[in-house]
Structures are given as structure tokens and as C-alpha cells.
């Protein structure tokens, strides 16, 4: 199973404030632990929304809107993708994620399971596994 750990933005990350040495070390240690456990698939930081843009859709119309964007708490600052055998393992790894808050204040991460190509198709057996929530990726 694959999960994406989404690091939400903070005021500091949006202002482009670089994390201090301790936070960088804590993040590096954590990702090293993930790698050593064979669970790390990918990880990246995202530049502040001031460097980004949105495309807004309304029927057939599209409009490009430049950042920065206001709703800091809903913005994404980075992601880490992990591979685990169970949902509980992903939960445990996410519990260990270092707090991304540069000032040590309040912030959050969100974890979502990644959809995977269903190569087991539409067989009745696959449907039963899907219902149990245990369909594994080959």
C-alpha cells in the first residue's frame, strides 16, 4: 500500500523562511529511518505559493491566477510517499514524522492512501478483497 504524507504550509514556509539546523536534521533522520526500513519511495519540498499559480475552471472558461494564496493552513509545503504492508504501519510512520513547524508552533500533516492500478480487474474474488480493504498491489 502506498501513502502520501502531506506537509501543510505554515506562515514561515509561505514566507520562504528556511528551516533551522535542528529541523533539517530531524527531517533528514526521519527520512533516513524510512529509507533504512525500505519504506521510502519519494519525498520533496514545494516552494512557497508565491512562486506558483492556479488554474481556475468555470464551465469552459479557464483562468490563470498567480500566487501567493491566502489559506495557509490548506496549502501544501511538501510530501513524502511511503510503501507499507498495512494501513497501521503507515499510521505508525506518520506518528513519527517530525513537526514541520519552523517555529515549533502548531501545524499539521495529512496522510492519504494512493489509488493503485487495479490489475486484479473485476473478478468476484477481487471485489471481495476490495470490500475487505485488503487489496494489495502486485
Amino acid at each position, binding site marked *: 500500500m502506498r501513502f502520501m504524507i502531506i506537509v501543510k504550509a505554515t506562515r514561515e514556509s509561505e514566507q520562504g523562511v528556511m528551516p533551522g539546523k535542528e529541523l533539517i536534521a530531524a527531517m533528514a533522520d526521519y527520512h533516513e529511518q524510512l*529509507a533504512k526500513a*525500505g519504506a521510502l519511495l519519494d519525498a520533496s519540498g514545494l516552494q512557497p505559493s508565491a512562486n506558483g499559480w492556479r488554474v481556475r475552471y468555470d464551465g469552459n472558461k479557464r483562468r490563470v491566477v498567480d500566487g501567493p494564496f491566502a489559506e495557509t493552513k490548506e496549502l501544501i509545503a511538501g510530501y513524502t510517499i511511503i510503501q507499507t*504492508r498495512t494501513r497501521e504501519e503507515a499510521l*505508525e510512520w506518520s506518528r513519527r514524522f517530525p513537526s514541520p513547524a519552523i517555529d515549533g508552533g502548531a501545524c499539521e500533516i495529512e496522510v492519504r492512501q494512493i489509488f493503485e492500478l487495479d490489475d486484479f480487474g*473485476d473478478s468476484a474474488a477481487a471485489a471481495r478483497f476490495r470490500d475487505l480493504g485488503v487489496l494489495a498491489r*502486485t
Partner: protein
Amino acid sequence: MTTPDVQRAIDAVWRIESAKVVAGVARLVRDVGLAEELAHDALVSALEHWPADGVPDNPGAWLMTAAKRRALDWLRQAALHARKQQELGADADARGDHLVPDIADAVADAQGDVIGDDLLRLIFTACHPVLSAEARIALTLKLLGGLSTEEIARAFLVPEPTLAQRIVRAKRTLGEARVPFEVPAADALPERLASVLEVVYAIFNEGYTATRGDDWMRPALMQDALRLGRMLSELARDNSEVHGLLALMELHASRAAARTDAQGRPVLLTQQDRTRWDRLLIRRGLAALERAAALAAAARQPLGPYALQAAIAACHARAASAADTDWPGIVALYDALAQAMPSPVVQLNRAVAVGMAFGPEAALEIVDALQDVAALREYQWLPSVRADLLAKLGRHDEARAELMRAAELARNARERELLLERARGAAPGAMPPGGPAPGPPRAR
């Protein structure tokens, strides 16, 4: 947290931490079976205390400390027996060990890479050549893969008691052979590492060849092998073939979703829907291959067999479509692979590439020469490849006869059906599905 939640959390913590705990204890008690027991005692203690006290902030450290405390108790008890005291003393003197390590070592272990060293020792021990291939696989999945006996049994289609006995006997064999808990010395390292890589690749192939309808534990073996391979690439960063094997597995796994159609029939590599190839795994595979190549170059060594096979897989991965495939490049890689890993199966795969790069006549010459090789006499892909080449040369009756022959040699109903379909002219064929997996390379 409710008690079922705590149970599940403990289970997850165990999967993540058990290998490290077993490895750390094994360094103290020098016996993998005993180490697993003591580690398991720590787990039992967690199951008793955590529901009431809550899951600790650092559950891994809690388990490690609890297990090592039990290990030290065991060592002190053992030291009280006069006979044991003499043995341990002699062994300890011979090894220059401290008899009773300081608990502070547990803290020091968290720094440095002591844990990494212990895990390496554990991998080499679980893959020791004194054990049979199936015992090594079972023990590696149990001690390093974090799988339960039941899960391993289901994955390998054996009854659980059989698998449990296999593991018990494996530990006993290691004890009786007095296999030391250590990373092999430099001169033994290539052979021993080859054994480890062989085990990981065998687990991968078991998962890779699992078919639709199998218990989902079987294809999940691919993920277990990838996990072991990724762990190994961190623990043994400077070894080219470790990265080569990882690259090969990531690249093969990248095609897993495209290898079979909705009915579960194999889809030939050249006909796979490449939008179903996993680009994340391709990227990881290519990165691992680059590391393997850089390490080989730095050591002024040629690419090893795993890296070469990965390089061939990479040629396919880089091609946006089948038509874009660099077949001459693949032929050159097979030339090198045939040197590193002389095998008639490699020669056959090379012939397929020669056919794609230089035309069917050149390939047919090679395949005809392989017909007398004993090892390929019962190998269904030989007549299958020959059939395809004959068809391309317009020799359709001979092609059909070869496909009927191949169907007779097929190992299961699905393969037979595919070959018979081709004989009836219903399905085109370029090469065996995904290429047959060559046997694991022998250490030189």
C-alpha cells in the same frame, strides 16, 4: 486509544522494529533463535503494559531496551553455570568481547550505525549457505521481513506447521553449525553477498510469477523483496550489485500492472500498455542502476549480472513505445551478460534481441545452435522463440509445429493456452511474456 487500536498499533510497531530488535539482541547472545525469543518476550511485555500505559513516544527504543535487558539477564544466568561460564569466558576472550555490555551501549547504539551493522549481521546469518534455499527464504522473511509464520506459509502455499518447522530447523542448523553472528570477512564476502542477493531475488520472483486468483499474499512478496532490497541498498551502500539487484526489481515491478490482461493472460512486453507502467518505480530503478554503474566504474569493475539485467530492463523502460526500443543496445548488454553469466537462457534471450535488432535470419542461426543444449531441451520458450522467427521468415508450417511442441512443454494451463492460440494464428508473438527470468547469477 481503545485496546483493539493499541493491538493494531503494537502490530505495526513490531513490523517496523522487530528486525532491529532481534539483530541488536543477537549481537549480545550470539544466537539468532534465542534472540528472536528474547525479542518476542519484549513484545509480550509491550502487549501487557501499553494498553494500560499507552504506546510510548519512542516504541522502538522501548522494545530494544526491554529485549536487551532480558538478554543481559539471560547472559548473567548463563554465566552462573560453571560450564557455560568457562565457554563464554573462552569465547569472549577469544573474541575480545566484554562479557556484560553496559546498558549505556543501548543509547550509543542509536548513534553511529551500530543498528545498521547488526541488521547486516542478521541478513548474512539468515542467508547462510549452510541452510537450504527454502530455509533461507523463510528465515529472512521471518526475521527481516517482519512477516508472521502464517503469512509466509500462505505466500508459499505450504501449511503453517510445515513452515513453522522449517524455521525451527533452520535456527537449529545455525546453532549446530555454530554459525557466528557476524558480517563475513572480506574474502568470503562476495560469495556470501551473492547468497543474500539470491534469496531476495528468489522472493521477488515468487511474487512476480504469482498469477491472478492466487492468495494476495503471493504478489505481495514482490513488495517484501523490494523492501528487503531497499533496506540492503542503505545498509550496504558501497556495493554495486546490491544496487544492481534493486534496480532490476524496481524496473520489473514497474511493469507489474501491465503484464497481464483483464482475463489474467500474460501480455508480451512489446504489447504492454505503457501507460500502466509505474513511472515512480522506473525512476527509482534508473537511479539505482546509475548508482550501480558509478560504483562499478569507481572500482574499475565491469557491471555485474544483476546490474546488466537491470540495464536491459532500463532500455525497455526508457522507450516511450515498443518501436522506440534500443534493440542494438540491448544486444550489446546481452553480450556482456553472456560473459558475466554464461547460460543458455541468456543466449536465448540474446537471440530474441538479435532478431529485433538485426533481423530473424541472424537470430535463427543462434537459436538453431541452441537446440542441442541439454538444459534447454524441456524449455518451452526455445521452440516458442524459434516459432516466432520462422513465422517472420514466412515458414509458417514449421512455425506452427514449433508452437505445438512448445505447448507440450508448457508448465501450466495458461501458458499452454497462449501457445496454442499462437499456433492457431490468433495472437502475434515477439518473445516470451516479459522475457524469462534468467537464473540467479553464480558468484565468480
